[in-house]
C-alpha cells in the first residue's frame, strides 16, 4: 500500500464546552484516489474538512493527535506559512457557486489572483495559464468568458470557474464540499464527470463530501459514513455498498428512493378534482420611468392537465422551468395568471371576493424551505391554528385547541409542541408542522413544492411516508413539485415533465419513467445518479 497523502488521527472539534461536533475521527486519503465522506446534515462532515484547512470559526476548539499531509505535520505549521498549503497544495470547492465568487471581479481576474499568489509569473504567463484552466474545466470560448463577471455565467459554469480556481494552485488534494448540491441533475452529472476527468489528468486526490449516497457510489474509491460527529463505517466502494455493516448505513441505503417503486400504484379512475386549461403565468418586464410593460417572462406558458381525487400528480423539471410558478399561480399567490381553472367542477375564474377566498383555501401549499415557511415569532400552536381562525371564526377557542392537538398527532408530533417556537424543531419536524398547518383547513388538494429537497434522505423517506398515509386516510390529492425523479416514483400516480414553461411529457408514472418518449425526459432520467452496486 502506498503512503497516505493525508492522515487524520483522533480529530475532535467542539464549539461549546461539552458537545463535540466532530468526535475523535481518524481517516486517510491516498494519492490519486477519490475518498467520499458521506453523512446527513449536521453530522460534522464539512467541519472536518474545514478543520484540516484551518478555516474553522474562531470559537471552535480543535484537538487532534495527528494531521499529516504528505509527511508534514499540519498542526505544527505556523499560520504565516499555512498559505503555502491552502490553495497551493490543498484546494477546496464550496457548495454554493452563487456566493463563492466575488461579484465585482471578472472571472479571469479571480483565477489570476490565485496564480499571482502562488507563482511569481509575468502578467502574460498568468493570463495564458488562466485561459488554459478555463479550457481545462471545459468552459466554451474562454477568451470571451475571461472578461465576464460571475452573474453572466450559469450556475454550472460558475461551479466550473470555482473548480478552475481550485486547480490554479495545482493542488495534490482537492476537497469538494457538496459541489453539486445547488445544481440541477443534468448539470450535476456534467460537473461530476468533469471532476473525474480532471482527476485522471492531474493525478490528484479528490476528497468528496456529500449527502448523496447514489452519487458517491458512482465515483468514490473509498467511502466513509459519518453520524453525529463519528465515522461509523469506512471501506472500499464495492464492499461498502454491497455489504453495509453498520445499522446506520443500512438505514441510509434503505431510505434511498428507488425508481422501481412505482409498480404498486392503482390505475383506478376517480372523479376529477382539478382541471387546468391553457394555464399561464406571465411576469411583466417593465422599463423606462413610467414602468411600461415591454415584454413578459413566460414562466408558465399554456399548461393543461387534470388531477383526479385522491391521486398524486408529480410536476418534474429543472430549476427555472416554471414548476413553482405553476404551483403558486394555482393558489393565486402570484398575480398575472390566466387560463381556466376548474376545481371540483367550479370555475375559479368566475368566483369573487369571499367565495373565492374560501374555495381557494381548499388548496393548500407546503413549501420547500422549512426554515422560512413559518413565522419565527409565533408558537407552533398558533401557526397551525391560523387557518382555522381565518376561515371558521365560529369555532370556539377550546375546540380549536382540540383540533390542533389532533393535527399534531396526525403528523406524529408530541402534543407539547404547540407551546414551542418553530426554531426549536429540526427540518423534518418543521415540515411536519407545515403539513399540519395545511391540513387544518381540511383541504382537498395540497401543492407540495419540493417538500423534501431541503431534508436528509432518511427524513425525506419519513415525510413521503407521512404524505402517503395521509392520502390514504383522507383521500387528499397532491400536486407534487420536485426536481428529484427518484422521489416521483415513490409517490406519484401521474407525472408531468416541464421544460421552459411547457409540459413536454405527461402520463402515467410507470410509462414516463420506464418508456420516456421525449428526448429531454430521457436525458433527465439518465442524469439521475443511481446507486451502483458492482
Amino acid at each position, binding site marked *: 500500500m502506498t503512503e497516505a497523502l493525508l492522515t487524520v488521527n483522533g480529530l475532535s472539534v467542539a464549539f461549546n464546552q461539552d458537545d463535540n461536533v466532530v468526535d475523535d475521527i481518524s481517516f486517510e486519503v491516498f494519492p490519486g484516489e477519490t475518498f467520499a465522506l458521506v453523512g446527513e446534515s449536521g453530522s460534522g462532515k464539512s467541519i472536518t474538512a474545514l478543520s484540516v484547512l484551518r478555516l474553522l470559526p474562531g470559537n471552535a476548539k480543535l484537538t487532534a493527535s495527528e494531521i499529516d499531509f504528505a509527511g508534514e505535520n499540519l498542526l505544527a505549521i505556523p499560520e504565516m506559512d499555512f498559505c503555502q498549503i491552502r490553495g497551493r497544495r490543498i484546494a477546496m470547492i464550496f457548495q454554493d457557486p452563487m456566493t463563492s465568487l466575488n461579484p465585482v471581479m471578472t472571472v479571469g481576474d479571480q483565477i489570476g489572483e490565485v496564480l499571482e499568489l502562488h507563482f511569481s509569473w509575468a502578467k502574460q504567463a498568468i493570463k495564458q495559464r488562466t485561459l488554459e484552466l478555463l479550457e481545462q474545466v471545459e468552459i466554451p470560448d474562454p477568451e470571451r468568458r475571461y472578461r465576464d463577471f460571475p452573474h453572466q455565467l450559469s450556475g454550472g459554469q460558475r461551479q466550473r470557474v470555482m473548480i478552475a480556481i481550485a486547480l490554479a494552485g495545482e493542488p495534490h488534494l482537492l476537497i469538494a464540499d457538496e459541489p453539486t448540491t445547488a445544481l440541477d441533475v443534468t448539470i450535476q452529472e456534467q460537473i461530476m464527470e468533469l471532476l473525474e476527468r480532471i482527476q485522471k489528468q492531474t493525478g490528484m486526490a479528490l476528497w468528496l463530501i456529500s449527502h448523496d449516497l447514489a452519487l458517491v457510489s458512482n465515483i468514490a474509491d473509498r467511502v466513509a459514513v459519518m453520524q453525529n460527529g463519528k465515522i461509523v463505517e469506512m471501506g472500499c466502494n464495492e464492499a461498502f455498498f454491497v455489504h453495509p455493516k453498520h445499522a446506520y448505513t443500512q438505514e441510509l441505503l434503505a431510505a434511498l428512493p428507488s425508481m422501481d417503486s412505482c409498480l404498486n400504484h392503482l390505475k383506478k379512475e376517480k372523479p376529477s378534482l382539478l382541471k387546468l386549461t391553457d394555464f399561464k403565468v406571465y411576469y411583466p418586464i417593465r422599463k423606462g420611468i413610467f414602468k411600461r410593460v415591454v415584454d413578459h417572462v413566460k414562466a408558465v406558458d399554456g399548461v393543461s392537465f387534470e388531477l383526479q381525487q385522491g391521486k398524486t400528480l408529480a410536476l418534474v423539471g429543472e430549476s427555472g422551468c416554471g414548476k413553482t410558478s405553476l404551483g*403558486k399561480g394555482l*393558489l*393565486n*399567490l402570484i398575480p398575472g395568471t390566466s387560463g381556466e381553472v376548474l376545481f371540483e367542477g367550479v370555475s375559479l375564474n368566475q368566483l369573487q371576493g369571499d367565495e373565492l*377566498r*374560501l374555495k*381557494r*383555501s381548499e*388548496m*393548500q*401549499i407546503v*413549501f420547500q*424551505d422549512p426554515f*422560512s*415557511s*413559518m*413565522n*419565527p*415569532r*409565533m*408558537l407552533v400552536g*398558533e*401557526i397551525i391554528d*391560523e*387557518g382555522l*381562525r*381565518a*376561515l371558521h371564526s365560529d369555532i370556539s377557542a377550546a375546540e380549536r385547541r382540540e383540533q390542533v392537538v389532533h393535527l399534531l398527532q396526525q403528523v406524529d408530533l408530541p402534543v407539547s409542541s404547540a*407551546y414551542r*417556537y418553530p*426554531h*426549536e424543531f429540526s427540518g423534518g419536524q418543521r415540515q411536519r408542522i*407545515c403539513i399540519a*398547518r*395545511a391540513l*387544518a*383547513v381540511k383541504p382537498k388538494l395540497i401543492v407540495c413544492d419540493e417538500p423534501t429537497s431541503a431534508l436528509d434522505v432518511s427524513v425525506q423517506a419519513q415525510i413521503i411516508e407521512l404524505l402517503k398515509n395521509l392520502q390514504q386516510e383522507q383521500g387528499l390529492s397532491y400536486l407534487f413539485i420536485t426536481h428529484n425523479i427518484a422521489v416521483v416514483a415513490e409517490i406519484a400516480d401521474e407525472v408531468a415533465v416541464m421544460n421552459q414553461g411547457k409540459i413536454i411529457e405527461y402520463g402515467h408514472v410507470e410509462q414516463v419513467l420506464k418508456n420516456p418518449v421525449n428526448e429531454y425526459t430521457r436525458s433527465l432520467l439518465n442524469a439521475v445518479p443511481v446507486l451502483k452496486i458492482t
Partner: protein
Amino acid sequence: MTILWTDALIFFLVLMMLVLGFYLRGKEHLRRPIGKVTASRVGMMSLVILVFFGMIGLLDSIHFKPANDKSNEIISLLDYWTTSIRQQQEKTYSSPFAAYSYSKENITTDDGRQLWTYPRLKYGGAHLKNPDIKKTHDIMQKAAIGFTKGAGLFAFFFILLLSFFKERKQTILKGTAAKPVWMIIFIIVSGSYMLIDLSGFYHVLGTDKVGEDVFYQAVKSIRTGLVIGSLTTLIMLPLAIIFGIMAGFFRGWVDDVIQYIYTTLNSIPGVLLIAASILMVQVYMANNEDQFTSLVVRADMRLLFLCLILGVTSWTGLCRLLRAETLKLREMEYVQAAQALGVRRRIILMRHILPNVMHIILISVVLDFSSLVLAEAVLSYINIGVDPTTYSWGNMINSARLEMAREPIVWWSLMASFLFMFTLVLAANIFADTVRDAFDPRRADND
C-alpha cells in the same frame, strides 16, 4: 389644578401603558419573554432608573396655581416641593458647592472701604462663618447625614414591603435580578435624599448666569426631555409604521403615493418646516392673548408644537426602513402560506409583518429618542426650539456655548445636562436591548 396640553398627553400615555400592561398580563406566550426581561440584571437596573426619571417627569407634570401666591404663575408639584431650592437665587455664576461668587465684584465693607473681591453667596454656604476652613468638613457631614436619612427611609419602606407581602418574600429577595435592583433603588433613594439635603445649604451643581441653581434646572429638564422623546415618538410611530408597512406590502400605486409623500417631505429641510410652524404658533398666540395669559401655558404650547412638527418631519427614515423590510418579509413563505390559508390581509399585516419588524422599530425609536433630545438643543440655538423660559438640556447646552468661551471657564451647566442626558439615554438603550433580545424567540435558548 391646571392641566396643560402636554400634561394631558403624558397622562394619556401612562394610561395607555397601564392598559397595555394589564392586557398583556394574562397572555401565556408572553410569560417567557417577560420573565427574561425581569431576570436580566442590567435590564432591570436600567428600568429602575427609567422609572425614577419617569416619576420625576410625572411629578413635574401635575400643575396647579398655588393658593397663597400672589403672582399668576402656574407651578408643578415638583416646583412646590423644591420651593426652597427654586427661590435660592444668587446674583450670577457660582461653581458647585461654592461659598463665594465666581466673579469679582466691588463691595463696600462695614468700615466703608471699597473692595474688589469675590463676594459671599447669598444662600450657598451662607450658614458657615468661615467657609475656607469649615466647608469640606461641613459638606461631608451633611452628605453623610443625608445619606443615612435616605438609607433609613429605604429600610423603613423595605421592611414595610416585606411584612406586607409575607408570602411573596421569596420572589422579592431571591429573584435573579433582585439584588442589583434593590441595590440601585437603595442608591437612588439615599442619593436623592442626600442631594436634596445638601441643596438646602449649597448649590450642588453651581448656579448659572442669572444665579439659578443648575441642579434644579437639570432636574426640571427631565420632563422636557421625556416629553420631546415620547410625544414625538408617539406622533412619528403610527405614521412610520402604517405608511412603511403598507407601502412595502401592497406595492403598486399605494407604494408610489407613499414614496412620493416621504421623498417630498424629505427634500424640504426639516429646519424650515420647524421654523415655519413655530412662527405660526407664535403669531397665533400673539393674536389670541386672552387664551395664553400665563408664561407656562405659552411655553407649553410651543413645546407641544415642537413635538408635533418634529414628529411630522422625522418619520420618513423609519418609514423607509420598514418599507424595505416589509418588501423582504412579504415574499417569505410564511406570508404566502397565510395567504393560501385565506387569512385576511390586515390580519397578515398585524400577525406576520408587524411582529417581525418590531426589532427595527424598537432600535430606531431608542436611537431617535437621544437624537431628538439633541435636536432640541440645536433648534434652541437658532431660537426655534423650546421656549427660552422652558428648562431643557438643549437650552442648557445652548447657554454653555458662551460659558465655555469664558475665562475662567464655566463647565457645570454642560456637565450637568450631559450627566442627566447620558444617564437617561444609556438606561433607555440598555433596556430596549434587553426587551428586543427577550422577545426574539430565536435568541431564547442561546443565552
